[in-house]
């Protein structure tokens, strides 16, 4: 008996250690980002940094305003949500409630495959097909734009939205739907009036997850957005996201420029923390 208890304790300890590794990584990254992100903000000034409209990090008189990046990230993510959520949500309703088992399994594996495609592939396809396509379709001089990034992001967030919504819709008790049907509602009425409201916090969580994925994406948008540090005044404009602002300049940067890039990363990190908090909020509500 004693030996068994000892082994139990050892294994318990090992699990704890493994768990602590994850927590340790999060802490390490957080602390590192805060420490390396604060100095530049202090030097540039929080207001000038967050609300400055001009970014010219290597100019004679450098300007470090990241408002264009913040707005671009917000607009880009919002655009992706506007396009991606209706498509993803309807797909989820169809797969969860209407589709025959055969169609469901085929489409679900297609969705999983979409989730598994590396972002650089999305970027490459976007660069070679979407960007020239936008240029020709809208007869603009260049297709690398906010619109291209929005479309790529919308496709990239589809799998998270679909999977999460399906889980939420599948979890709606069958009795609710049966009761609705028994009262004379048609199946489609039942899905939209009963199933969807019952699953709404799960679906909200799916949307938040999509937002998180879109705002954190760097590689694919870097290849299609053009990366000029413009204010996003038009969807055909070349823009730079928070993520791409960091990744495009970090390799050659030095001094205050490098510190400012860490500050951008810190801002991005705060955005993602907020999104995670929202996600937890919705998930908790769903459980209750």
């Amino acid at each position, binding site marked *: 008996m004693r030996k068994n208890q000892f082994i139990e304790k050892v294994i318990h300890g090992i699990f704890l250690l493994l768990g602590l590794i994850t927590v340790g990584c999060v802490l390490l990254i957080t602390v590192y980002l805060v420490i390396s992100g604060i100095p530049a903000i202090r030097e540039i000034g929080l207001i000038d940094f967050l609300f400055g409209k001009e970014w*010219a*990090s*290597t*100019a*004679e008189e450098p300007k470090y305003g990241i408002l264009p990046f913040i707005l671009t990230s917000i607009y880009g993510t919002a655009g992706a949500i506007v396009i991606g959520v209706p498509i993803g949500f309807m797909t989820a309703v169809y797969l969860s409630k209407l589709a025959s088992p055969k169609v469901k399994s085929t489409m679900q594996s297609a969705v999983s495959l979409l989730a598994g495609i590396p972002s650089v592939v999305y970027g490459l396809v976007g*660069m*070679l097909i979407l*960007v*020239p396509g936008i*240029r020709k379709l809208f007869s603009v*001089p*260049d*297709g*690398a734009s906010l619109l291209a990034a929005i479309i790529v992001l919308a496709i990239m967030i589809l799998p998270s939205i679909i999977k999460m919504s399906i889980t939420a819709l599948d979890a709606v008790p069958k009795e609710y739907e049966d009761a609705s049907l028994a009262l004379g509602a048609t199946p489609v009425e039942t899905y939209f009036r009963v199933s969807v409201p019952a699953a709404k916090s799960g679906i909200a969580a799916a949307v938040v997850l999509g937002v998180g994925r879109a705002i954190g994406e760097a590689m694919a948008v*870097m*290849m299609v957005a*053009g*990366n*000029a*540090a413009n204010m996003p005044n038009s969807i055909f404009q*070349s823009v*730079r996201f928070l993520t791409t602002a960091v*990744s*495009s*300049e970090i*390799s*050659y*940067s*030095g001094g205050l*420029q490098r510190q400012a890039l860490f500050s951008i990363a810190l801002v991005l990190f705060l955005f993602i923390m907020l999104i995670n908090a929202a996600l937890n909020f919705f998930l908790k509500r769903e459980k209750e």
Partner: protein
Amino acid sequence: MKKIFALMMTAVLALSVLTGCGSKEEAGSVTTDGSTSMEKVIGALGESFQNETGISFTYNPTGSGSGIKAVQEGRCDIGLSSRDLKAEEKETGLGATVLAYDGIAIIVNPENPVSDLSLETIAKIYTGEIVNWSDVGGNDSEIVLIGREAGSGTRDGFESITDTEDICQYRQELTSTGDVITTVSQNPAAIGYASVASVKDSVKALTVDGVAATEETIKDGSYVVQRPFVLVTKTDGELSDAAFKFFTYITSADANEIISAAGVVPAN
């Protein structure tokens, strides 16, 4: 590219640890300071020099101006400058030896009928003074300016040669030469720049003032979108043994292969 290079350097370093110091150790060290654009070429040279002689080599990427100052003040053995020395700098007792030439090709889509531009026109295009290809003898379409990200050596080179520092109206800022070439090859209205060595057939390199970019025209100076990579030394003071060895090594014909591999045209 820089990352790949850094990885290679790391690999070489790691290997040299494994083989247990095959090269003979020698006292002394060489310090260099200056142009960030020269990082790639001087890094490659320093690495191979270090492997061959065992003399340690350091490079401090501070910028051409700081590098020249560092030599004047005796803070380093050899200064690195990606521009010619000014007359007043030469008067303070500095000598310049050209190590290599960095040629930058101006590229357009192969469909573009324009095949020659003057340096002045290129500057006007990049600053947004000329916005339509028809103004320079091309089709009636808006010019799409493709450039590199802030901090890139090629961007710094292009902007300093065309005298358009910080005023280029880029439509796209891409992070690698390959991306610039791909983007230009995709868009008939695009113009971009890339180091001469990396230009491919998918794009058309323009002649500038009627001169095509080749190794010869870059070397003799007739192709104007180019700049020298200069080694700056004191004319009165003597170099240390180690620094002299390094200087001789990198200006010898043996180093040409390494210099070419770094994408620039060797001068010696």
